[in-house]
């Protein structure tokens, strides 16, 4: 496998969890709730995935458990921000602090402090016959693990739901004009809560991708800001699943590039710069992207008019 092929493969692989996380974020933010707990839910998903897979020896149990853990965290976040109407950024930051301690604590609770990190066999790649033999891009597009294929399908389904179905109309209206949704007899808070749960489920799955999707182990810095990058991609992709797809690929490329260069003998650029590349890219993109289509009620709790 030459370096270009390797770069393409790494790009698609690293963009998978970003697609999942950012897609979830799109759905939550379209209803008006920023899921700021995303970084913490990624981490708990990584933990849940590893624990489920390690204890049962079955990867699918890991992914299922990761989704459940994600939903659980999302329920706490949703309860505080939607039901109790507390500040979304403050609550999200609090949950992120809590999960940093929790991830490590629960890991040590189950496994003690092992000398070497415990490992599981990560998800295997599925090669589609013939197609994966296409030079250069074949392996990147047609020899990935099942989660990558799932992420792409979910993006398409997400686009369809958001823009082509009545449900999508309700979701978008809840973020743009919650009063209208309320008057139409739809419970705004319920829609928002469900959107947060759904997005958190995807975040949990995305987190598990890091632990059991390709690394096969859990450490407390396994996410290292990728949740925030997914959060940023949602902004930069203009709250549109197709924008997310492009954004995730760009960031996947930045991350893939740093991985490929780190493992090669290319020493012209300091490693630290390569590691910082996706974060610098996020800053540049945040600054460069000027025209936003921000949901009108993003970040604002819905308070029913009382008279």
């Amino acid at each position, binding site marked *: 496998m030459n370096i270009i092929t390797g770069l393409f493969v790494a790009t698609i692989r690293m963009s998978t969890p970003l697609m999942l996380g950012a897609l979830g974020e799109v759905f939550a933010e379209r209803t008006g709730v920023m899921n700021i707990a995303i970084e913490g839910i990624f981490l708990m998903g990584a933990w849940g995935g590893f624990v489920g897979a390690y204890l049962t020896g079955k990867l699918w149990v890991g992914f299922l458990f990761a989704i459940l853990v994600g939903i659980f965290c999302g329920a706490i976040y949703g309860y505080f921000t939607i039901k109790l109407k507390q500040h979304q950024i403050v609550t999200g930051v609090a949950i992120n602090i809590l999960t*940093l301690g929790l991830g*490590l604590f629960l890991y040590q*609770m189950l496994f003690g402090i092992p000398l070497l990190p415990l490992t599981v066999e990560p998800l295997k790649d599925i090669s589609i016959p013939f197609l994966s033999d296409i030079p250069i891009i074949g392996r990147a597009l047609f020899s990935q693990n099942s989660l990558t294929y799932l992420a792409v399908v979910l993006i398409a389904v997400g686009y369809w739901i958001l823009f082509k179905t009545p449900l999508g109309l309700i979701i978008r209206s809840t973020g743009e004009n919650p009063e209208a949704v309320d008057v139409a007899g739809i419970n705004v808070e319920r829609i928002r809560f469900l959107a947060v749960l759904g997005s958190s489920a995807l975040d949990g799955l995305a987190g598990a991708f890091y632990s059991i999707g390709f690394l096969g182990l859990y450490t407390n810095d396994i996410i290292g*800001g990728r949740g925030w990058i997914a959060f940023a991609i949602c902004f930069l992709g203009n709250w549109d699943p197709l924008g997310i797809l492009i954004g995730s690929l760009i960031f996947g490329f930045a991350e893939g590039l740093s991985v490929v260069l780190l493992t090669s003998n290319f020493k012209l650029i300091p490693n*630290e710069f390569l590691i910082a590349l996706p974060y610098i890219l996020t800053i540049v993109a945040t*600054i460069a992207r000027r025209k936003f289509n921000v949901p009108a009620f993003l970040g604002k709790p819905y308070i029913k008019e009382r008279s």
Partner: protein
Amino acid sequence: MKKNNRNKDITVKSELSVKVQDNNILLNLLPIFSVLLGLLLSSIMMMLLDHNPLIVYSNMLNYAFRDIYNIADIFAKATPLILTGLAFGFAFRASLFNIGAQGQFYIGAVLAVGFALKLGSFPMVLALFICFTMSLLGGSIWAAFIGYVKARFNASEFLVSMMLTYVAIAVMNFLLGGLLKEAKGEYPQTDVIPESGWLPSLIPHTRLHWGFIFALLVALVAYLILWKTSLGYKIRMVGFNRDAARYAGVNVEKIYIIVFFISGAFAGIAGFTEINGMQHMLIEGFNPMIGAEGIGIAILGNAHPLGIVISALLFGALKVGGNLVVQTSRIPASIIGIMEGFVILSVILSYFIRDKLIVLRSKKKLVEQEEHRL
């Protein structure tokens, strides 16, 4: 129209909170209740590990207040937390989110250690002054960039400050791998700085140093800026209602940059107190939670300098007691982070309860007034 409504809501709310501030023992006790609730939730985690939380907590108290050394350590540990707490709290007063105090802290630390290493021959006061100024400027310029892109490009300060933390970590690791690496060249850390760069200790034979006094002074400065100057008035105006401030002629964009400049200075000074007062060297990845803890402290302290100082002392005590409990028993060190997390979450819960209580009381008052009139 929408906006008008919102303004009205805010003014009504503020009037309410002014009205009930006279008789609110319960409201003042709420933070204490929420801290207790946070510790209660953490004790569930301890029980999961078959530890008796009562024993753990009593050990923590005993350790934290065992002797003068440990008590002094609480204040020493609280020092950088006060500063990063102020960094978040100050920006929060302007409704801005500086969640990158960690990165500004690292930049301050890098500059403090870099200058301290070079200034061995300088007299102590001068060496310390230079380190202090450099870390302050480093943190504030690093953060002012966030304010600038917010003002100029309307970039999300939340995202940019978060991402800049990872960049700051990369900068620090890069320097520790080369320019600042110890003479032995073995580990990613610096040499111990010459004694001319050491902040003198406040109480002999303890780790408490003058940095704590600095931190208190900085908290006082933050208070004075926010509540006793016209700049502070504008900052709080922007925090209260950006659009109204703009209509009133405040240059909101300029305020963004100033707020981040000051906020970053606080975090940068934390780098100075940690390097010159506590560690006397820079080690890769040291104090990795100080920014996040600062956010928690600012939330717990209601973004008020006095509240931040008190909350930082509480977190300092948790750390000192917690560290010793962790060392002497088989509880993982991450329990300290869990306690902090649960405490912050319960504080948010208490804000909800506080708002509910305020509304309830003022409703009751209104009803009483109506009855009186009849």
